[in-house]
């Protein structure tokens, strides 16, 4: 009897200890009535008891990539949209989660997509490697009915990279093109003019080099940065059709015209046209090198133009930077007036959104994708609009780089996208490895091309 009693006593003790442990865990958040908290636990309790209409407070997670100085203009727009949406939707609080672009795109979001717990609203890239892959796996919210209801269906300039089987799964925030930025002061000093032909471009590079200036600032620690240049060179050497051709099977990676791209890249590396030690530098280092006048040119996206009108970031170089598109390549295939053009970065929404969250999503889309915000994006941030704006709105642009970019696009024969949105992601990943090997002299252009073709074939077989 005694034995049984002591056993029971022990069991009870053990049980209470375990339960007490659980209990305190549950109670803690509601006890700590901290108003500075992220509003999640506090908001669920406080107002509900007082308000007669019984508005259920709820939070919606929002992942953005506007962190740091260089994206402050874009962040201001997002903040206003968030504020306006919160005012419109009763009970809504956005929980903003800012992350560095490539960390979000290449690390966190893929992991969240696999685990099935992405944020409700998140920064998303279009194309086969991102939006379309997630859409095929039913991770993204079908936005077709929402944009129809908001009357936005026909307003977007290009939804190609977010459209799968006629349904829209993401909305681009803007458009961009990639080209060369150049330091006008240095160009003037060495008697160079804005290159319009390939010879002039290489002459400029040679002149800068012989004067101890790095011709092309580069940060290849993140391989996507040199690949921007490779991408546009593919468009020039192999023609605009080459980019969609990889997937369609009409363009092979080891065709001579693509090998030429890598050969030219290798030639520039060997001539010392890129930053020395580029494999150790990041995206931000590349901008630093350019802004401090150590490099005469960089190849980068038009999304970075707002840096050069901000004295805090561009310093002495404010307003003294020009932009030009890659000149025609002698003997290049296809229409040489095409430019790189992407409507690929924007927002996607979780397929798991509940009714409340859907209301928030709809309001968010309405407030972000409208003429006013798009014009603000264009004027303040230099990002080309993703929806059609009136001519008079566009006439308000006074930033010289943005004007130039718009002229380039207007004069172009058309646009080809970045190949990362047009090839399977394993091919893209391999190209990141290969370009670094090429830069380090560990692979020849032919080897790079052959490896990529092999991966492309294996991917198409799947």
């Amino acid at each position, binding site marked *: 009897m*005694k034995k049984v009693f*002591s056993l029971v006593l022990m069991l009870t003790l053990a049980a209470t200890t375990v339960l007490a442990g659980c209990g305190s865990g549950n109670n803690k958040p509601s006890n700590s009535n901290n108003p500075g908290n992220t509003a999640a636990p506090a908001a669920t309790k406080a107002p509900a008891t007082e308000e007669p209409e019984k508005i259920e407070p709820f939070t919606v997670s929002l992942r953005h990539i506007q962190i740091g100085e260089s994206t402050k203009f874009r962040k201001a727009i997002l903040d206003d949209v968030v504020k306006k949406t919160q005012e419109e939707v009763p009970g809504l609080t956005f929980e903003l989660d800012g992350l560095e672009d490539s960390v979000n*795109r290449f690390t966190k979001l893929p*992991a969240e997509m696999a685990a099935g717990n992405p944020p409700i609203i998140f920064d998303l890239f279009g194309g086969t*490697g991102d939006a379309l892959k997630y859409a095929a796996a039913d991770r993204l919210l079908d936005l077709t009915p929402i944009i129809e209801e908001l009357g936005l269906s026909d307003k977007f300039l290009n939804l190609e990279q977010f459209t799968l089987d006629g349904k829209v799964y993401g909305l681009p925030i803007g458009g961009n093109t990639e080209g060369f930025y150049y330091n006008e002061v240095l160009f003037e000093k060495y008697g160079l003019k804005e290159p319009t032909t390939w010879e002039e471009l290489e002459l400029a590079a040679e002149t800068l080099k012989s004067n101890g200036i790095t011709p092309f600032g580069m940060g290849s620690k993140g391989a996507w940065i040199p690949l921007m240049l490779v991408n546009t060179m593919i468009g020039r050497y192999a023609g605009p059709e080459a980019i969609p051709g990889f997937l369609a099977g009409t363009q092979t990676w080891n065709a001579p015209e693509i090998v030429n791209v890598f050969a030219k890249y290798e030639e520039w590396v060997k001539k010392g046209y890129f930053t020395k030690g580029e*494999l*150790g530098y990041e995206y931000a280092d590349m901008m630093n090198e350019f802004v401090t006048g150590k490099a005469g040119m960089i190849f980068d996206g038009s999304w970075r133009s707002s840096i050069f009108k901000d004295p805090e970031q561009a310093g002495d170089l404010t307003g003294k930077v020009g932009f030009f598109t890659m000149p025609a390549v002698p003997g290049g295939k296809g229409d040489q007036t095409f430019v790189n053009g992407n409507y690929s970065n924007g927002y996607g929404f979780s397929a798991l959104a509940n009714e409340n969250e859907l209301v928030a999503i709809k309001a968010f889309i309405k407030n972000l994708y409208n003429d006013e915000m798009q014009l603000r994006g264009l004027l303040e941030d230099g990002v080309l609009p993703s929806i059609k704006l009136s001519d008079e709105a566009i006439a308000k642009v006074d930033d010289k780089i943005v004007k130039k970019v718009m002229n380039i696009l207007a004069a172009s024969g058309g646009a080809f996208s970045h190949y990362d949105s047009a090839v399977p992601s394993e091919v893209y*990943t391999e190209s990141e490895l290969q370009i*670094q*090997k090429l830069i380090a002299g560990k692979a020849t252009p032919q080897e790079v091309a052959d490896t990529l073709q092999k991966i492309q074939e294996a991917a198409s077989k799947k």
Partner: protein
Amino acid sequence: MKQTLRNPAVYALFIIPTLALYCLFFIYPMVTSSYYAFTDWNGLEDYKFIGLKNFVDVFSDPDFRSAIINNLFFILFAVFIQVPMIIIMAILIGGVKRLQGFYKTTVFVPSILSTAVIGILWGFIYHPEIGPLNGFLALFGIDKIYWLADEKWAMPAVLFVNAWQWMGFYIVLVLAAILALPKEMNEAAEIDGASGFQRAIHITVPLIKPIISVVMMLSIAGAMRVVDIVLVMTKGGPVGSTEVMASYLVNRAMGVNPSYGLGTAISLIIFAFALILTALYQMTFGKSEKGDVS
């Protein structure tokens, strides 16, 4: 009460919750996830059983083989450079009379810093243009060295920082053992005319062998799964020259083109390597040293 303790059920009562938690959080996930190593699971689409393909793929990739070699570098560096340095430093600090606390704290500081901070700190020190290291070398007319961008230098640079980060922790461990030694032996040896070096070699080191053995084993296990410092400083680059097995896993199996099946296979390989190496060590050097002490 005495009777209660004789009842095996009571012991079970104490052990079962711990065992259950251990199984729930360690054994069960490990066993179930091992299954994925034999699938092509990418997190998004349906997966299928593909047998040993992941393992074959990994071992036939020259980049992975070079990652294994880089792991071996970490181990060799730990065993032949780091551990001797640790012992020397610990003996030196153990011998000082003044400011011992100051030295102890100073060597320990790096190991309480987060790896991310260390990566940024040393990224600055190694910076080819503005870094103090190249600035210092320039005084002797040495040309700029691209520490983290040059394949020759990246590995030594990372090894050094990794050692810098962890040595302090081990020094404090060894130091504790040294300070716990009875003073009489050293004093007697000193009276007999033994030099400081002789005393260190013939008295201190043999007496602290057990702790050295532990430090050695921890260093080997640590070197097998090292990853954070590599990712923070070089991301495995330039061109794979600092890639270790775990960073290979992060770079290839995660990211924009995730392949969690492959990732699980790699982690099993790392686990197996670490297990074999530590077991080998225990059965050879670890064992004999234990014998010495007893």
